[in-house]
């Protein structure tokens, strides 16, 4: 039936248009969230810088030579993995890149005969590893959109509990580092034991000799401080991941919107062509039908040539033509 194709196309355009509205909205939401997330990253920096500085001073004061969170274990039987992904998809390759990186590292450790323990942040990470039959030890959801310090503490507590109990001997942290709007990198880094070098590397001697008064003893302070430091690191990673997630989603949604626009143009063109075709077909059908009717009535004469056209086009011949 004429117009059928057109109707199908019209319906498709409508559906693409409503999808475009959704992706556009998500794009704008993500764009505004990135700004907020970046501000949060910046706002969290002073704390982690200061806490690192304090630890450095404590180390200079002679503390922490043998702290449990600082000392490496001789044999590593089980490696913990903290993977920070998102709760939701529609963020391009964001989830899969960080998950794959973690899985790769996990496989490497497995090849060395080590067991694993997965502590996952974000529903997508949990879905992935569960679907592939990995043993998942802890899942944290509902915190990646706007991580709060409380959330980081919750995750860090779980990690440090397992580490302290000797369940895991090493914990790696996989997350996406936010470098700029255009660049985010997946990082797989050691989380605990804390690398002593990371803290003491800038052990400058040119600074003022720090004869600190300590209250309580340096080791007692360090005891309280190191867990906070680990929390702060995890919090920073979560904030970075959150900013990266929003950036990835914004990019994915922007290209989805662009694609929808392009698709609409293409569809609109073929719809217009279909409509034109339908109209042309209809006209020729009408004309053909009318002609056939007239032919039948007047008994064999050609309606177009013998009657209408000759009289209209050549009025001067009217007398001649008219019978």
């Amino acid at each position: 039936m004429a117009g059928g194709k057109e109707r199908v196309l019209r319906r498709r355009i409508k559906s693409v248009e409503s999808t475009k509205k959704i992706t556009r909205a998500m794009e704008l939401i993500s764009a505004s969230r990135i700004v907020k997330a970046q501000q949060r990253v910046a706002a969290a920096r002073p704390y982690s810088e200061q806490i690192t500085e304090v630890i450095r001073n404590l180390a200079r004061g002679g503390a922490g030579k043998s702290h449990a969170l600082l000392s490496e274990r001789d044999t590593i039987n089980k490696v913990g993995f903290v993977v920070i992904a998102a709760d939701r998809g529609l963020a391009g390759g964001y989830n899969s890149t960080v998950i794959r990186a973690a899985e790769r590292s996990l496989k490497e450790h497995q090849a060395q005969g080590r067991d694993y323990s997965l502590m996952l942040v974000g529903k997508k990470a949990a879905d992935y590893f569960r679907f592939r039959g990995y043993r998942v030890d802890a899942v944290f959801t509902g915190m990646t959109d706007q991580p709060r310090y409380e959330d980081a503490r919750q995750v860090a507590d779980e990690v440090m509990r397992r580490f302290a109990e000797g369940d895991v001997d090493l914990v790696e942290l996989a997350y996406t580092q936010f470098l700029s709007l255009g660049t985010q990198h997946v990082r797989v880094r050691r989380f605990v034991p804390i690398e002593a070098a990371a803290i003491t590397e800038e052990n400058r001697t040119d600074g003022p000799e720090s004869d600190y008064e300590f209250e309580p003893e340096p080791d007692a302070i360090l005891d309280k401080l190191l867990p906070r430091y680990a929390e702060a690191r995890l919090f920073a990673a979560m904030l970075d991941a959150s900013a990266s997630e929003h950036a990835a989603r914004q990019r994915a949604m922007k290209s989805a919107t662009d694609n929808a626009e392009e698709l609409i143009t293409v569809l609109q063109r073929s719809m217009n062509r279909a409509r034109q075709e339908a109209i042309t077909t209809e006209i020729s059908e009408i004309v053909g039908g009318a002609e056939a009717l007239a032919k039948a009535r007047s008994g064999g004469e050609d309606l177009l040539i013998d009657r209408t056209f000759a009289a209209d086009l050549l009025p001067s011949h009217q007398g001649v033509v008219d019978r």
Partner: protein
Amino acid sequence: MQVELVSPERILFSGEAEMVILRAAGGDIAFLENHAPFLGAVDIGVVRIIGSGQSEERAAVHGGFVEVRDNRVIILSDVAELASQVDVERAREAQRRAEEQMRGEHDAECDAALRRAHVRLEVVNG
């Protein structure tokens, strides 16, 4: 001297002050201009930052650390609130709940919750 009160999520206070009073592990301690370098743990308590002209900023700090060096006092706390940010209703509610729990069998957590609630209310009421 320069005083900074820093939480993981943001800088709560940053500015000049003449004296800072806080509760360290061994009891209340006050820092004045040119204090010797000091590094310590901060207990749950009220931090009072007294500026020139007796202006005073109060904050509830639920544990943290303090570093004093070169006329700078840096207080790091993972949970801290300025007096103006304390939700009085919530603190009262928390206090009531904690006190109720204290009547039954209580643990360190409950004890800490009660202390936190007290500190919050103390910050507001002076």
